[in-house]
């Protein structure tokens, strides 16, 4: 089973790598053709038409196909490993990186399907690839669980919601980066600023409740395992900071009407906090120090 798992992992790594190549290739091709990637490039969404003579081959369809394969193989890999170890992907950094990559690819595909634009995917997929390559360098052999981690249900849920939240926030990051490049709508082959802004907002609308669950399930587990729901453990604290940043984004937007650049910067900061939280166990020790 572990053998199968590493087999699928390799297949997923290959697919994701190819997917990233295709996305980058497509971006280059679009630049070259100065074509319109999506209708909605200019300021008024309804008035734009794809540039004549250029058939954007399916808004990164090949890239998306490879991403679908990546998700498929990664799912098989996670399931295979879960069957072999009897628990969810939460016992070491390898497992968590794979789970995170899964979340990013799934979110990428959902947003690409929903918005029919591959532009943000071209930023988000390299993030997924980075997590996979990082996982490849890590010790992957499953280790037996120490007593505190023998709480399979809660921890699997905890990591599953983290997977979704972080994956979706990667999209928020991608759209924020593109928004900053596209603020004035000057790049014809990118989606309009308004669409990018909306993608960022939607990523938070989806991700924030999940992020809340990450915190609460973690607290619930801590209460069961140690008898205190919150102990200002470094990873807990930085998760809280991440959560506050996204909470701040929502409030700034809804109450103050923050749009565009300012909220894009918040999204980038938020994702930086996500990465910091994820790498956190390397910077400090604490309850989450399972490296």
């Amino acid at each position, binding site marked *: 089973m572990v053998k199968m798992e590493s087999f699928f992992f390799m297949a997923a790594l290959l697919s994701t790598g190819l997917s990233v190549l295709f996305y980058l290739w497509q971006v280059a091709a679009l630049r070259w053709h100065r074509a319109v990637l999506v209708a909605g490039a200019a300021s008024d969404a309804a008035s734009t038409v794809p540039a004549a003579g250029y058939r954007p081959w399916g808004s990164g369809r090949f890239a998306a196909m490879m991403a679908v394969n990546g998700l498929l193989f990664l799912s098989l890999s996670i399931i295979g490993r879960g069957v072999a170890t009897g628990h969810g992907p939460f016992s070491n950094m390898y497992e968590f990186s794979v789970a995170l990559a899964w979340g990013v690819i799934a979110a990428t595909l959902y947003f690409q399907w929903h918005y029919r634009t591959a532009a943000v995917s071209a930023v988000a997929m390299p993030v997924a690839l980075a997590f996979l390559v990082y996982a490849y360098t890590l010790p992957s052999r499953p*280790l037996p669980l120490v007593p505190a981690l023998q*709480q399979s249900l809660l921890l699997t849920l905890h990591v599953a919601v983290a997977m979704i939240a972080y994956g979706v926030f990667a999209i928020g990051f991608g759209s924020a980066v593109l928004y900053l490049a596209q603020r004035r709508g000057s790049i014809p082959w990118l989606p309009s600023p308004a669409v990018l802004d909306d993608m960022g907002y939607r990523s938070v609308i989806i991700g924030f409740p999940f992020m809340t669950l990450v915190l609460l399930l973690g*607290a619930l587990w801590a209460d069961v395992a140690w008898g205190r729901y919150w102990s*200002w453990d470094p990873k807990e*604290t930085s998760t809280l900071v991440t959560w506050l940043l996204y909470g701040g984004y929502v*409030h700034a937007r809804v109450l103050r009407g923050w749009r565009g650049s300012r909220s894009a910067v918040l999204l980038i900061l938020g994702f930086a906090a996500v990465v910091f939280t994820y790498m956190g166990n390397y910077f400090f020790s604490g309850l989450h120090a399972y490296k």
Partner: protein
Amino acid sequence: MEGKTLTTEGAKTAAARRSAGLARQWARPIRRLFRSAWRVCGSVRVTVVLILVLIGLSLVGTLLIQVPGEVAADRAEYAWWLQNVVRPKLGLFTTPLAFLGFFDVFHSLWFLGAGALLMASIMVCSINRWKALRSALDGSRVKLADGFYEGGSSRAQFSDLAMSAHEAEGVTRGVLARRRYRVRREGGADGFWIAADKNRHFRLGTYLHHGSIVLFVLGFLVGSYFGFRSQSFMVPEGSVREVGYGSGLSLELESFVDEYWPEGPPKDFRSQVILYENGAEVKRGVLRVNHPMSYNGVRFYQSFFGQAAVLEVRDSSGKLLFNDGVALGWLSGQEPYKRPTGMFSVPVTGLTAYVVGPAKGYSDPMVQPGQVLMEVYSGSSKPVAVGALQQGVPKKMAGLEFTFVRERQFSGFQVSRDPGNALIWTASSLFVLGVGMVFYFPHQQIWVRGWTEPGKGTRLRVRTASGRQVATAREFETLVEDLDRELARAVKKV
């Protein structure tokens, strides 16, 4: 008489007037102060600043070494900790950082102050919002000026409809009802007016999750004032220890086992325990990590373990005074020879004895394996007797006979009663519920005006609220699509 009464009354009114004047004189600045405090608390900018301050302080608390809870409680121990643990690392920065309370950030004045202000600000913002929410719940006026229907962030107009205004209204109301809008209407000779909305009650979710933050704090406060938490409750194998804190509970540890995976990492820590209340057995079972035991709101968690020494003390006549395990639960001495140390009081005699075992993991030059070091004190800081005990060999010390019977293990538990816990989990559920309500069920408002233009047909104007919400635009798109289709169908039928 009359005159006098008058003067007294006059004096009274003068005094009343004066005090009223005084009150008025003070009332204004107080009201002004209150108002500006209210305004400050209700300001989003202030809230953002508070959140940033809290984030900054949290970062400090994460990156900077923090004092352990039990050390912080004792001034002398805290000073010792600063001097011996922090100063070697941070040097000159130690004093200013300690002055700022940065080694216990989460209990510092800054953190608590910013937290309290944030609470106040959340509450003020929530109250400020009530007016808007109230009118949203009531619904807007149905009949508005004609110009109103030409505004809105998103809007649509259907004209030259080959049907009466009444029929058009029927179609519109059908579409709105199918999309589960609350429809309120007015009609007249010159057409109809509709104000429709849906998900209005979900807006109350904002009170659920903002209120739950206040509930979190309340739960935390209730827990820390009406509960207790002991992080270092140690029971040696074969011994009974009182929990304390007025609980009347005591715990007996029958056996403790620490198991390891063949690869080395720990596999299981379990304590076989019996719980007594006022001396009577009330519960027995196995305590493991992730499997706490609970009795009457007091919860026991497997937390740590270590070595214990079983000791016997007899007086000069040979009468047994003490026969129990002593948990060697803390460390004394310098690196690398940190020695497990424990303490017990010898009954009747008023003596206190310290027991020091050999350092773990090293060949200890001072305390041999199979030995413990004893220091017996009687009140003063100078020991009355010091000596090494060989396992199984009685030794006379301070007029008593001490025997080191054998080594065993002790199990360490976290014991807590947290009456705030229920509040915390209620708050959590409310929070998730509130966020879900507000995020996934946005309030949608639609206004429709329809009238028949002589000779042309019926004209419909549909509009949304004025905010630039994508969710609103999205909903409007589908609504207009539905409306378009249904109107076309109705026209065909007619």
